[in-house]
């Protein structure tokens, strides 16, 4: 084991200006357009957004899992443990994948190999990255299945994915990800396909496993409830860009970007019973159809002329907060818009 000297405040993972392009029949699109964020050691960052915002592609970029016709543009940087993952040789990248940084996918039925048993798939990870013998790897796999809460792991290890329930399959995925004690977990909608009682079990499991091992986590989700329960910091994505970043408590207390504000208001919850929900008009535009200046301008309740002519920068607001919105310069407009609603109501 090589001990890397790192400053404790040094982030484990830093994305800088990450850009992913796809060449399509309709021309070049940029579904991930200049994404930057840091994840500290032991921290959970939630990357939130609706379908098509680029959050899953961003996650795939980290381990260079983007396939042609997708391309990670030059100038993008992904620093993991002080190594730029976009320039490390393939062999080194392979040794990082699964061992130092592991991914948990949304759909365990497609992410697991149907012709290998659960135990074999976990043991394979162990054998690929360590010198463990076949039987040692199997023992580790069985122990790991037990650790993620699978009853009678010796029996389950010999079963194939189709013989396991959805919750159990996701536990196998988590076991595979955790077996080599990675310092970074990338979880892409890990509980979205599952029922709410099973989701509760797995969120607890992920949190406990992460805390016990001091790992960092990038949690990709569209569910603000899951964010509130699991993350310390949140980055909100819209149309390929991060539009807001904040510590979780601050974000829920006072969202700054109109998109975040709209998402929170659109959620049905206790207290809103049978009243009209606040909606964000229109739909998420597909990549290639994004407005030129502010990408949210056509759906924003506060938008004014400046929003359709000048792209807002990601303003730094202090206390780890940022917002990609011109309202930062002209906060009076937010108040004015709320007053107007008050008058008409």
């Amino acid at each position, binding site marked *: 084991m090589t001990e890397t000297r790192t400053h404790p405040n040094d982030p484990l993972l830093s994305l800088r200006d990450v850009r992913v392009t796809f060449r399509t029949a309709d021309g070049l699109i940029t579904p991930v357009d200049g994404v930057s964020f840091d994840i500290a050691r032991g921290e959970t960052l939630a990357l939130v957004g609706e379908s098509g915002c680029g959050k899953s592609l961003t996650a795939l970029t980290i381990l260079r899992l983007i396939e042609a016709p997708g391309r990670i543009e030059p100038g993008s940087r992904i620093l993991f443990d002080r190594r730029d993952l976009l320039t490390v040789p393939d062999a080194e990248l392979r040794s990082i994948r699964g061992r130092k940084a592991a991914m948990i996918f949304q759909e365990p039925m497609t992410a697991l190999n149907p012709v290998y048993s659960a135990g074999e798939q976990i043991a394979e990870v162990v054998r690929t990255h360590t010198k463990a013998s076949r039987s040692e790897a199997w023992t580790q796999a069985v122990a790991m299945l037990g650790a993620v809460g699978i009853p009678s792991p010796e029996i389950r290890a010999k079963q194939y994915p189709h013989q396991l329930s959805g919750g159990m399959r996701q536990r196998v995925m988590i076991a595979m990800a955790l077996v080599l004690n990675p310092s970074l977990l990338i979880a892409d909608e890990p509980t979205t396909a599952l029922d709410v009682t099973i989701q509760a079990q797995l969120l607890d499991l992920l949190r406990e496993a992460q805390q016990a091992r001091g790992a960092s986590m990038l949690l990709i989700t*569209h569910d603000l*409830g899951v964010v509130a329960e699991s993350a310390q910091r949140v980055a909100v994505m819209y149309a390929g860009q991060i539009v807001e970043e904040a510590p979780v408590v601050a974000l829920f207390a006072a969202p700054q970007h109109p998109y975040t504000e709209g998402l929170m208001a659109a959620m*049905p*919850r206790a207290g809103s019973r*049978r009243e009209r929900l606040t909606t964000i008009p229109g*739909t998420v535009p597909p990549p290639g159809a994004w407005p030129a200046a502010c990408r949210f301008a056509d759906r924003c309740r506060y938008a004014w002329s400046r929003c359709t002519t000048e792209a807002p920068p990601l303003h730094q607001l202090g206390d780890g907060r940022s917002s990609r919105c011109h309202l930062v310069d002209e906060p009076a407009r937010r108040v004015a818009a709320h007053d107007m609603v008050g008058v008409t109501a």
Partner: protein
Amino acid sequence: MSEPLLSVRGLSKEFPIRGGILNRVTGSVRAVTDVSFDVAAGETLAVVGESGCGKTTTGRCILRLIEPTAGQVTFDGVDLLSLRGAALRKMRRHIQLVFQDPYASLNPRMTIGDTVKEGLTIHQLAEGAAADRRVQSLMEEVGLRREWATRYPHEFSGGQRQRVGIARALAVEPKCIVLDEPVSALDVSVQAQVINLLQDLQRDRGLTYLFIAHDLGVVEHLATRVVVMYLGRVVEMATADVLFSEPIMPYTQALLSAIPLPDPLAPRDRIVLVGDPPSPANPPSGCVFHPRCFHPDKDVACTQVIPPLEEKAPGHWAACIKQPAGTSDFFLPAAALRSRRTAASPAT
């Protein structure tokens, strides 16, 4: 309650399991067992539960898209299960279905105008120019532009397709619509638009909804009454207010406490159930929930007696043979649960 619009009694559905080279019936899956409830005109009754609990099968049995094994379904005074042929088709006009998946439930080769018009033609409600006018006004009513009638489903987003599905259901002027997870496939911002639309239509047209869902946040927002199903059985039934604040059945309590609240400061005092739901092909004896139940008084009786659905308080039915919440410290006291939920009210 006055005479219910829809009344379901003792509804059961068994699917045979076939196996072996002769494809003999080797067993059966009891997808729905002895389900009974009423839906009053103008209300929204939600049927909730996790995958495999039988909520969708219940909805389909009511519409006779699946033939139930046993039971009675009365709609507007008519016994739906005895209808055949033309009479059944005629009845279907009054009880329509909106599907979960807006991508799979529209015919990709039909323009959305034709899709909405099909019901009008089949039920001979309008023809020619009159039908076209009806289609256009329906499209506007659900928030689609009338000139889009000549477009095909692939040209629309998920939320817009779900609006087409709603317009199609509305075309024949039904009294009741079975909504099978109508917003589950949609993004949060679009989901809110469709929820508002459903509420507006209900108010304007006096519609009755049977709302099948697993998202309890949406259910709490939309439903007037809620039926909770587990492994094919109704385990609890109450008004939405009562169910969300004073759940009796341990499964309902666990289900409600498992909802992730969009509030990072909310206490994490959830009940986490152990294990997965058992297979409906081999349900547990007695109370179907007993293997996962955390009730402190759980005993051998729970493994032997099938708990009847009893009225524990006026209008509040639950299937549990033990003393409900309030008598035991183990449960989240109802008041605490309620305050916890109101604590999660909008932060801004």
